[in-house]
């Protein structure tokens, strides 16, 4: 027996031209581009391949998560499956009643009241009057809008509109459900309720396709995972495996990112001293890294050039700053019995457990002589965790032991 629903996509491509900004010249440019393309068979420069030769098939019962960076084509894919956008080439075959939650509030009418909007949506969905009446009270209860439910939508705050749109989404009865992105709605209490409703909805749908940046959600909810990368289908398979590879790749990209984002140079150099280099090392023999795991032991390696052999030996100050301005450590070599020599090329190493909250940090190294700053340099790094040791979002993750003793 053939199944009731399926999605089949073959050699799907979608290209966008230069944005149409209302100018005739641009329009002509677009036309000539299309002409050139049809004549020469090549894409005009400036064209964006949102989807490039993508093929897959989804059978009834599958829960598919779509991952990929911004601009990978995830939303375009969902828009095409929903019928909101058309494919440039390829075959798209979707069988089943589709409900797409792509942009919240797309179908809401400003002049109608909240209640009328809900009724209208139910009617569009093809629900019977009896079925509508059965759920409408439940929907109104769900959105918690009070008196506003009988007021026109234009009197709503954006948060209230989002709630109403959300009710429209969770009370439908789709066969194929397409969900785009984290549907974060409203305040904490409501978003918790909303998330639970999405879960229930996914349990009911015959096919669910969800686009999300939250990889844990994908692993938890989906039986299959599609990874889009710059319009191409890079991987298709088990969510746990694919998200693990994706995470590794994202991390590598992040490393490059950190270096380019922290370009601002705070280096200070005087005749007395220079901080030649700072490196963070997590394994002996390895080169410097910019990403460390929560709690990982790391070595901060500092190469100095000290040039005033006649003065008092300078003090070395190592501080770590969280990007939002919290200083998480401030240590001086002079707290220990150690001293650097007065002159020459010196290497100082400081080992530290990076028991820090995941996020972006900077290590600052100051060389201080007679109370004055004579050299400074900083280097950025990221603290990373796939899974945190525990909740509470503390600044530090310290290994604390608890033990109970009877006092008699």
């Amino acid at each position: 027996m053939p199944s009731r629903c399926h999605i089949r996509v073959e050699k799907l491509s979608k290209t966008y031209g230069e944005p149409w900004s209302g100018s005739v010249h641009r329009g002509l440019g677009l036309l000539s581009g299309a002409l050139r393309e049809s004549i020469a068979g090549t894409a005009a420069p400036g064209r964006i391949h949102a989807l490039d030769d993508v093929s897959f098939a989804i059978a009834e019962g599958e829960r598919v998560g779509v991952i990929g960076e911004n601009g990978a084509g995830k939303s375009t894919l969902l828009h095409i499956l929903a019928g909101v956008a058309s494919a440039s080439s390829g075959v798209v075959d979707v069988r089943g009643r589709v409900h797409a939650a792509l942009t919240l509030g797309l179908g809401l009418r400003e002049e109608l009241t909240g209640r009328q909007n809900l009724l209208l949506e139910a009617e569009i969905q093809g629900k019977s009057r009896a079925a509508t009446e059965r759920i409408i009270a439940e929907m109104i209860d769900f959105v918690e809008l009070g008196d506003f439910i009988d007021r026109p939508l234009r009197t709503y705050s954006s948060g209230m509109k989002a709630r109403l749109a959300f009710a429209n989404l969770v009370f439908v009865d789709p066969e194929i459900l397409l969900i785009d992105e984290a549907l974060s709605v409203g305040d904490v209490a409501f978003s918790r309720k909303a998330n639970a409703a999405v879960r229930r909805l996914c349990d009911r749908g015959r096919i669910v396709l969800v686009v999300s940046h939250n990889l844990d959600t994908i692993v938890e909810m989906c039986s299959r995972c599609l990874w889009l990368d710059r319009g191409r289908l890079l991987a298709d398979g088990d969510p746990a495996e694919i998200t693990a590879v994706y995470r590794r790749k994202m991390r590598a990209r992040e490393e490059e990112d950190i270096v380019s984002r922290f370009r601002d140079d705070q280096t200070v150099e005087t005749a007395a001293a220079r901080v030649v280099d700072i490196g963070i090392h997590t394994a002996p023999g390895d080169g410097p890294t910019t990403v460390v795991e929560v709690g990982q032991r790391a070595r901060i390696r500092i190469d100095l050039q000290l040039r005033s052999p006649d003065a008092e030996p300078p003090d070395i100050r190592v501080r770590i700053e969280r990007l939002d301005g919290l200083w998480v450590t401030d240590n001086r070599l002079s707290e220990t019995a150690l001293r650097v020599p007065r002159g020459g090329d010196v290497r100082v190493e400081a080992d530290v457990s990076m028991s820090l909250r995941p996020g972006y940090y900077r290590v600052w190294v100051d060389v201080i002589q007679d109370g004055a700053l004579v050299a400074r340099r900083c280097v950025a790094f990221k603290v990373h965790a796939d899974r945190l040791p525990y909740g509470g979002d503390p600044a530090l993750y310290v290994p604390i032991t608890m033990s109970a003793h009877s006092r008699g």
Partner: protein
Amino acid sequence: MTTVDRTEDVALACQEVTKTFRVFHGTDVWRLIYGAVGDDAVTAVEQVSLTVRPGEFVGLLGRNGAGKSTLLRVLGGVYAPTAGSVTHVGDVSGIYELGLAGSDRLTGREFAMRWLSIFSSGAVCTEASLDETAEFAELGRYFDRPIYEYSSGMKARLFFSVATSQAGSLYVIDEVLSVGDQYFQSKCWRRLRERIASGASGVLATHDWSAVLRLCRETYVLDAGRIIDHGPSREVVRRYLALPGPSGGKACFAADLPETYRARSGDDTVLSVPVDVKDAIPVALGCSIEVFRDGLGWDNVIHVEVAMVASQEGRYKVDLAIPALPLAAGQYSLNLFLVEGPLCSGPRTVLDVRSWTHGSDLVLTVSGFDRDSVTVLPLSWRVL
């Protein structure tokens, strides 16, 4: 004389502000033109008075539809109040939820130029300042693309960057601090703190109580258009959260629980907590050490996961052993929670609490070196 002093003391204030919107059923334009009064009225904000002192951010807490956005727009001069008055010293930079000013056909750069020419008096809109704005927003080549191509995150980054690009004196901010990735969020916080440090003031509207704790000394709570609570943020949040109190009886902290603990920075530290268990029930303890810094707000520094401590009646001493206490010298808030197990699932019954969320936290006084940081990571040094 006193009146003059008082106005000098205010950066932004409103007195008895009410904002009513007329609702017309149907869309008969002629009725609007003839000045019909409307079929119905919605009062979004009612009799609200609040004061922002120079150099200070005030929090505005409330759920969706409480009237936060309306009030902000009244304060920012976007809406005229139906009744009451708004006073401010200097220009107001508004960061509204969905942006403002202009069409989405403008490019990011055009938007920034327009915004700056409208809202910053005398500010020079130089190439350099535009570049700085573009860089902060991290829009790359999209800065020269029309806004309709932007994702919602990109829009929010643009609006935030533009509105905070000039070291303005007065900000009204609507929810914007919850946009973007972790990196961008911390950049936003940092920029706001820099602005506050250089004397800026403003209002931060949010439904996120932790945000007002981080930024605002004082907080107002708005509910159905009215201010229902006002005071120091910490106390207001405590009442706003209205966490259930301890159920008591079965287990509690013993009478000899000290109000103040003392420790030395960097020492291996044991905090002993006396607990009386009066029933044969599973009892678990959790703990957090938090710090408040002026202008930087609250930080949860150390968090100890709830763990089982007893299952039989008796008097216990629970030792929390913290290796090389990673706190700088100073005063910390010590919070203890005694809950009924088992720990695996479901809501826990709170047996006893000493926490700032209940107005009963303990003090941890740490002595040691004077440092610029809040915490201290133990470093082992080597000179080669």
